[in-house]
């Protein structure tokens, strides 16, 4: 009964969210174009960076940047779903949903499921474009499964973070609160060059940033030379655990206000 009610609420919330997303060009097009734009700007504009002494990534700059963009799509897919949750609260829909849903955990599950489907769609397009422009993939099927699995976990963590914020603040004005920490976490990591080539205080921050290990493991997967795999998965899963608590407490906060 509990599982059944969770499932029915989660599927209903996810379906509504995906329906809105895919039928609204104002939501759908930026979500698709932004990662492609970042991929183009970074992989295209900075490709000369792989000539820098010490840049030893074997599969070229396109593959190096692809991993960043893939993880970025995963993280921002979660954040954008948080925007949708905030919009639902602002319009009063979420309040009615909280009253009507037989299992409120299903609401959180529904947003997570919607974010996952949105990311799968975006990641498929980004991967297609990357392969079309000649990205070199050294890893085998298992490695790529690891790469996409890592990104998927990041997507879940980001959704739980953003949904937690949306359920606490319940306004679209919470957008920067959801977005900025994710943006900073992603960019205070080895985005343009490997960690060893980063200079200054950003190197110190990147050395302890969990997303650094996700990027390094992801780039290892695509090169077919996995590194830091256990550490990367542990970091990503720890983020999911942490933000599960954050999301659940956000849900409880929303319940109290409903």
């Amino acid at each position, binding site marked *: 009964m509990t599982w059944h009610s969770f499932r029915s609420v989660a599927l209903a919330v996810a379906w509504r969210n995906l329906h809105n997303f895919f039928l609204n060009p104002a939501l759908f097009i930026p979500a698709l174009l932004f990662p492609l734009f970042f991929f183009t700007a970074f992989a295209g504009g900075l490709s*000369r*960076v792989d000539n820098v002494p010490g840049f030893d990534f074997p599969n070229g700059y396109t593959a190096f940047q692809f991993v960043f963009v893939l993880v970025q799509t995963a993280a921002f897919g979660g954040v954008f779903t948080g925007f949708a949750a905030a919009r639902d609260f602002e319009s009063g829909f979420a309040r009615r949903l909280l009253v009507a849903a037989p299992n409120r955990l299903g609401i959180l599950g529904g947003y997570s499921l919607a974010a996952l489907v949105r990311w799968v769609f975006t990641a498929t397009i980004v991967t297609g474009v990357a392969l079309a422009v000649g990205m070199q993939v050294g890893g085998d099927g298992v490695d790529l499964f690891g790469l996409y699995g890592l990104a998927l976990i990041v997507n879940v963590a980001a959704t739980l973070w953003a949904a937690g914020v949306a359920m606490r603040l319940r306004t679209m004005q919470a957008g920067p609160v959801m977005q900025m920490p994710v943006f900073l976490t992603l960019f205070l990591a080895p985005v*343009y060059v490997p960690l060893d080539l980063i200079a200054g205080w950003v190197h110190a921050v990147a050395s302890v940033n969990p997303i650094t290990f996700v990027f390094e493991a992801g780039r290892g997967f695509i090169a077919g030379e996995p590194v830091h795999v256990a550490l990367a998965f542990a970091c990503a899963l720890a983020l999911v655990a942490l933000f599960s608590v954050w999301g659940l407490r956000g849900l409880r906060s929303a319940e109290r206000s409903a």
Partner: protein
Amino acid sequence: MSSSLGTQIATLARRSIVRTMRQPASAIPPLVFPLVLLAVNTSGLDAATRIPGFPTDSYLDFALAFAFLQGAMFSTMNAGTDLARDIQTGFLNRLSLTPMRGAALIAGHLGGVLALALVQAVAYLAVGLIAGASVQAGVLGALVIFALFFLIALGFGALGAFMALRTGSGEAVQGLFPLMFVLLFLSSMSLPRNLIEIGWFRTVATINPVSYLVEGVRSLIIEGWNGEALGLAFAIALGLVALGVSAASLALRTRLVRT
């Protein structure tokens, strides 16, 4: 009895400046966001200075111009969003019942943009100098950077005002931001054009006017006085101002007729 154009501009400019400074959401991101990206890019791309032919050995010097351009682009958002709010709340309708002249509205509105631009320019240059950057063109060069930055901010601000007057929607103005970001990233902001390896990207960066605005500011920081780079940058900035102000004036005339 109607007040003079100067008084009208001063009154609306004062309102615009006070409103900009009173809204942290308008004033803080244009200050902080470009500096954060400057820090991230400088650290992340410092190794790029080792590419043969890179024009300076400090990526901070090279990237400082990017902060100015990104900061100027925020002017579009601020000017446009504030004006769109005036339209949405009916302030513009009420204003149109007074003897206020269209030129005063646009000029006054851009007053807030210029006030914030002054704070931005001082902050970017001060943070850059504290972090170790140097301006090869000296103190006079720094003043020329400020002048160029004001023109660019004015041009982008006028474009934001045009968008607001044309659509009357703050959301539509916000929708310009991704386009601005695309223009900025598809320019020579990260590497000099001659070092961009991918042919089509180099072509896009070459026809993108933002490249020449970046290069104008950058030339004063890393080279000293480069007449060609400065001439192109000032010509494009003045063109941007002329285009933005003309478009905003036309849109205002249409908006007031609709009203």
